C-alpha cells in the first residue's frame, strides 16, 4: 500500500482520466447524495480501491460531511480503503466452500505467502481476501484469481496458480 496518509491532502488531478470518470458519474446522478454508493462503485472500479484523496473529492462534490462518506465506505464489505494488490486472490468462504475445505486453502496460502485475508505482500504483487459467498456453491471450494473463477480447487492447485501469476 502506498502511504495513503501522505496523499490524503493532495487533490487528485482533474485531468486524471479516472477522476473524469467519477466526475461524469456525479454529473449523471445530478449531484444527488442518494447516489453516493453508485459513485463509490464507479470510483472503486476506476482505482481498484478508494484512496483517501478521492473520497475527499467525492465528499466535496456531493456537499456531504466526510463522516457520512467514511461511515458508508467502511460499512460495506465491497469497498476497500487499501490497495488490493496487483493480483487478487479471493477465497470464497460461503457455507458450501467452508464445508468443503476453504479454511485449508486459506491456511496453505498463509503458509506459502505469509498472508492473511485482507493483507497484501510488501511489493504489492499479491493480495488475499475472502468473500461471503460468490454463489458458485455447486463448484465448491471456489477461488477467484484475478476475476477468473477456479472451481473445485485444492490448496496445492491454487498455490501453483498464484505462483504462476506472480512470477510474470
Amino acid at each position: 500500500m502506498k502511504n495513503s496518509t501522505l496523499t490524503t491532502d493532495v487533490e487528485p488531478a482533474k485531468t486524471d482520466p479516472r477522476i473524469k470518470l467519477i466526475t461524469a458519474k456525479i454529473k449523471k446522478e445530478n449531484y444527488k447524495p442518494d447516489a453516493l454508493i453508485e459513485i463509490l462503485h464507479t470510483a472503486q472500479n476506476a482505482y481498484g480501491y478508494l484512496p483517501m484523496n478521492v473520497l475527499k473529492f467525492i465528499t466535496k462534490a456531493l456537499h456531504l460531511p466526510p463522516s457520512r462518506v467514511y461511515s458508508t465506505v467502511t460499512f460495506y464489505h465491497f469497498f476497500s480503503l487499501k490497495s488490493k494488490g496487483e493480483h487478487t486472490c479471493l477465497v470464497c468462504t460461503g457455507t458450501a466452500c467452508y464445508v468443503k475445505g476453504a479454511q485449508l486453502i486459506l491456511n496453505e496460502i498463509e503458509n506459502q505467502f505469509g498472508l492473511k485475508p485482507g493483507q497484501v505482500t510488501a511489493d504489492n504483487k499479491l493480495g488475499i481476501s475472502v468473500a461471503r459467498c460468490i454463489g458458485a456453491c455447486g463448484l465448491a471450494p471456489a477461488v477467484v484469481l484475478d476475476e477468473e473463477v477456479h472451481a473445485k480447487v485444492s490448496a496445492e492447485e491454487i498455490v501453483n496458480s498464484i505462483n504462476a501469476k506472480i512470477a510474470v
Partner: protein
Amino acid sequence: MNRQDLQTIIYAEKAKEQNNKYKHKLCVCCGAGCISSGSEEVLKKLQEEIITRGLENEVEVIATGCMGPCNQGPLIKFLPEYTMYQKVDCSNIKEILQRQLVEKRPIEDLLLFADSRPKPFIDAQEDPYYKKQMKIALKNCGHINPEKIEDYLVHDGYQALDKVLFQMSPEEVIAEIKQSRMRGRGGAGYPTGLKWESVYKYVSPQKYVICNGDEGDPGAFMDRSVLEGNPHRVLEGMSIAAYAVGATKGFAYIRGEYPLAIKRFELAIKQAKKLGVLGNNILGTDFSFDVEVRIGAGAFVCGEETALIASIEGKRGTPKPRPPFPAESGLWGKPTLINNVETFAGISPIINNGGEWYSDIGTPKSAGTKVFALAGKINYSGLIEVPMGTTLREIVFDIGGGIQGGGEFKAAQTGGPSGGCIPAEHLDVKMDYESLTSLGSIMGSGGLIVMDQSSDMVDVARYFMEFCMDESCGKCVPCRVGTKMMHDLLQKICKEKATRIDLERLEELAVYVRECSLCGLGASAPNPLLSTLRHFRNEYENRITE
C-alpha cells in the same frame, strides 16, 4: 409501441420458431457455474465446429441460463431430443457432434449422470433428477437465450403484462395473487397478495416497487440463477406488481458479487424499453413504469427490507424499527413494495394460468414450488425447483443423487445463518414453511447445504455465528454485543475449554438476542446454535470440561 404491435411481433417470432429451418437446437449452459467450468470456450468451439461441418443451417447453437446440476458442468443439451452431455470439454466436442447429429447414436459414457447411473437416460427428462422437479420460476431457464428478448416473447413473454393492462383492474390482479396463496420467497413467507394489497391501499402520488436481489446467505444462489437465466421474467413480474399497487418507479437491488446477473438484467431493461413493455405509456396505455438497477455493496443485513431501502438511499444499510412498514413509509418515505427475485419470477405464470392453478400445487399452507440451491456433500449440487411439500429425502437422494463418496447423511442446513439444521431422523419432513419451522429451522431463501458424518456441528454453529457477528450492523446492542459473546463462547467450546456454566450462559444469551434484537438478523442469529443444540446436543456435551 402499442398492443397490436407487440402481438404482431410475437406472432412473427412464433411463426419463425415454427418454420424454423433448424432441425436441432444446441443449448450450452452459460450460467455462472458452467462458465466457471469453461463453458464459454466450449460454446465458441461448438460454433466453430458446426460451421466446419457445414451444419450451420441445421443446428442452432444458443447460450442459455442455468440447467441445474452445476457440478457436472459444462453442460450442453440437444433439443428436441433433450439429450444432455456433462463435463463437456474442447477435446470431446467433435466426437459428440459426430455421434449425436450424424450417426444419431449418443455417446452413453458422456451423457448427463453417466458416471453415477447404471444406465444414463438419452432423454434427460426421464432422469429422476428432472422428473421429480417442477419448474415454474425456473421455467425456460436453460432453454432460452437470456440476452434475447425475442426468445422470451416466443415463450409467452409479456403476455401476462398484456393481460393485466387490458383485461384486469389492479384490484383483480391483487385478488388473483391472493387466490394463488403465494407466499414471499425471500424467507419469511408473508402472503404476497396481502403485501400487494397493503401497498395498494395507501394513497400517494409516488409509490415504489423494489426487487430484492441481495442474496446474502452463504450457500444460496437461486436469485442469481433466475436473474442470469431469465431476467425478463423478473422484469415482467415487477411491472405487473407496479400496475397492481400503483407504482411508477422500480429498483432492482442486486449483489455486487453477481456481475453477470447485473449485466443481463440491465440488458433486459434496455430491450424491454426499446420494445415498449417498459418505460412511458407501456403498450400504448397510460401506465408508465421504469426500473433502475442498484448494485449492492456487500452487507448481509441489506436483505432486511428497511436496511435495503437505506442502502438504495445511499446510506449505511441499517434497519429501522417497524412499524411503519415499507408499505406505508418506505423508500424516501413513500409506500414501497419489496419482493424477492423468485417471488417476482412466479407472478406471470399465476396471471397466465390463474391463481387457482398455482394454489393447487404444493401443500395446503404453502402453495406453489420452491427453488433450492443444493450444495455441500451431495453428488449433484446445483439448482432445483420442486413443489412445496416434497420431502427432504426425495431432494437429497432422488434428485441430489445422495451423499458424495458414499458417505452418510448427517444433516441438512436450510435458511443459512438465519436457519437451522435438519438431522437424519427427520429426512421425511415435508419441505414447507410450517414443517421446517416446527423443526427449529426455516425455509429461508432456499439454500440447502448437505452435511455428512465428517461435519462438526458445533463448528458449523460457530461458523454461522462468526458470520452474524461480522455482519451485524451494530445499531442495536443485543445483536452487536450478543453475537460476539455467543461467538466467543462457541469458540471456547470448539477448543474444549468451556465449562457447563458456559453452555448454560450460551443458551441464555441465545434467547436474549432472539427476543431483543431490532431486526431479523439478530432475531434469527441464534437459530443455527439453537437447532444444533436441539438435535446434536451430545456434540456440545462431549466437549465440556467439568
